[in-house]
């Protein structure tokens, strides 16, 4: 059903997507650090103005609608098209998208159900190792990716009982302990390559290897372009799924569990069941992202899945503003791209992120974009 403002919404979505694409294009194409700095400055000013005038809030609130998702997807495709023969840029884009997907998983756990997970990188790693082990076999690779998610969810289910029995700091400790445990386990376990890690063959669907560069319509296309497309697809699917979950009665149940367990229980909402559902779904999403990421990079080692990386994932969530998908996407881009484009700060990136997160927590605890309240169904025609 089209409501009266539909045309305007499509238009504004298209404009926003085009602006975003242009900004990202400028950022990705920029060669010198001065240009990158200038673009960042411009973006910061634009965001500041947008925040003051409230335009940004309105735009971002619409960010999850299918129209907006579609336009952003098209914008992403356009970017992939523009950079079709630049492996480095494509790799950056794909990585940002996969980090975004992993953070969506965390988002379901932390922002929706309030279950802390400080072992995000560990579940990402479970997905990656699953892809590494199963990818050698005869199993078709799309199924391998699904299996990555399933195994991550299964491993996560080991933590379910401890997580349900505890809460707050104690629950956080359990995930932290698991993250450290997982990494130590990988390092001492020879079957999984030990500290050296494992090599992977690339993604292969119906005999079509994603690793090879090839010619399409007479144009050389880097293999990473295909991974990028896969990542775009995965990200869109994940955003769609998370949005559906949030806007359904499941989302309401999760909100209730997060905001007040006692009240939720009084209304007959099973706390355990929804925590389990959110934690498992989140881990599955993280696992799939981990699987695709491992196949794309072609190599995994315990060092990629440190506690530090888990913290980076959680900080993406907080920087973007807990509970806001659009903020999440922006934060994922910043966290993945900034250190790569500004090489001088590469070495200092953890320091920078940690200080940034502390500042955000102390000065603007809501993150980049405030969490929007759930609005009654029907008030936004999706």
């Amino acid at each position, binding site marked *: 059903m089209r409501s009266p403002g539909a045309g305007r919404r499509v238009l504004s979505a298209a404009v926003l997507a085009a602006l975003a694409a242009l900004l990202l294009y400028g950022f990705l194409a920029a060669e010198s650090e001065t240009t990158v700095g200038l673009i960042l400055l411009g973006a910061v000013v634009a965001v500041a103005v947008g925040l003051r005038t409230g335009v940004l809030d309105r735009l971002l609130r619409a960010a999850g609608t299918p129209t907006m998702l579609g336009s952003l997807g098209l914008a992403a495709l356009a970017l992939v098209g523009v950079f079709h023969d630049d492996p480095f840029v494509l790799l950056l884009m794909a990585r940002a998208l996969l980090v975004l997907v992993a953070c969506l998983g965390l988002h379901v756990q*932390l922002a929706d159900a309030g279950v*802390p997970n*400080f072992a995000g990188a560990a579940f990402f790693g479970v997905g990656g190792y699953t892809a590494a082990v199963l990818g050698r076999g005869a199993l078709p690779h799309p199924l391998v990716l699904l299996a990555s998610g399933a195994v991550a969810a299964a491993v996560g289910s080991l*933590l379910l*009982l*401890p997580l349900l*029995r*505890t809460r*707050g*700091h*104690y629950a*956080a*400790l*359990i995930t*932290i*302990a*698991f993250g*450290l*445990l997982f990494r*130590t*386990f990988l*390092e*001492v376990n020879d079957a999984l390559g030990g500290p050296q890690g494992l090599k992977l063959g690339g993604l292969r669907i119906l005999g079509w290897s994603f690793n090879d560069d090839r010619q399409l319509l007479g144009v050389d296309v880097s293999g990473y372009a295909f991974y990028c497309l896969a990542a775009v697809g995965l990200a869109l699917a994940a955003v769609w799924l998370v949005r559906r979950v949030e806007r359904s009665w499941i989302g309401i149940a999760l909100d209730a569990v997060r905001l007040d367990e*006692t009240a939720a229980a009084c209304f007959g909402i099973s706390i355990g069941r929804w925590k389990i559902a959110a934690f498992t779904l989140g881990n599955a999403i993280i696992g799939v992202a981990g699987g695709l990421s491992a196949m794309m990079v072609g190599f995994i080692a315990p060092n990629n899945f440190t*506690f*530090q990386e888990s*913290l980076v994932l*959680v*900080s993406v969530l*907080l920087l973007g503003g807990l509970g806001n998908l659009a903020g999440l996407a922006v934060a994922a881009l910043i966290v993945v791209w900034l250190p790569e484009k500004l090489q001088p700060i590469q*070495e*200092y990136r*953890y*320091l920078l*992120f*940690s*200080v940034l*997160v*502390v500042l955000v*927590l*102390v000065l603007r*605890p809501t993150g980049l974009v405030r969490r929007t309240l759930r609005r009654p169904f029907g008030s936004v025609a999706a």
Partner: protein
Amino acid sequence: MNGVMLGLMYALVALGFTLFFGVLDVVQFAHGDVLTAGAFAGLAAYTGLVHAGVEAAVPQLLVVVLAATLSMAVLGAVLGRVLVLPLKGAPSLNVLLATLMGGTALRECIRLFYPGGSQPQRFPALLPSASWSMGRFTLRLDNVLMIFAGVVLVLALSLVLRRTRLGLEIRAVAQDEETARTMGIDFRRVVLLTFAIGSALAAFAGVMNGLYYNEINFGSGLLLGVIGFSAAVLGGLGSFEGAVLGGFLFAGLQTLGAVALPFASAYKDVFAFTIVILLMTWKPTGLIGERLGERV
């Protein structure tokens, strides 16, 4: 011997966690990195002394310990002031994350700005290295001295908490902040002093760690912090005896995992953390649990 040493070290870290949790109901996760920073501060003091030409071991040891504990006491108070107090009333997860990130910042600062900080640093052996052997068992004097010092420190802390005015104030704030305030206790002062004391304990543990292994590493604080926190949680956050008990329990688990179990000793941390998770599942608020009714 090894186990006792580790247990004491963990207990010292756990005591810090338990103190912080007592007064402010927060988990200060930069604690492990404060420990590392303390060890590095001690090392820096030692290097300074060597440059200044002080060669005698006793003044060296004193200066190292004092430099580490005092500087970390100040740092701990600053962390409490900057990271924890402003977030009072915020969701506990925010505090957790803020301190985790504060700890990361600290760790990165050591790695990036301490000369050669990204490599493991040799820690000088400042204690006499005599040892007695009894059959297969060797008792080293330096270990005995460290354990003695650690035990004295724990006992001293318990005395301070139970017999002094400051201890009374800390316990009062831990029990009920508002009532303590109405009784004229300067809340901020108590909190910051508690942070200073806890962080000094961690610094002492850091120096112990350095003396014991003769090596310190910028990243070792994270694991020690998590272990200390696990120990505090095992014992029951906010409980003095619990923290000590938890520290020795964790060390015992590690030793057991390394010695007595049928798999490689490299799995000792895996084993210890698994048991921690299981124990927490069994007793969600620690062995000596918080006995608080849930307020709705």
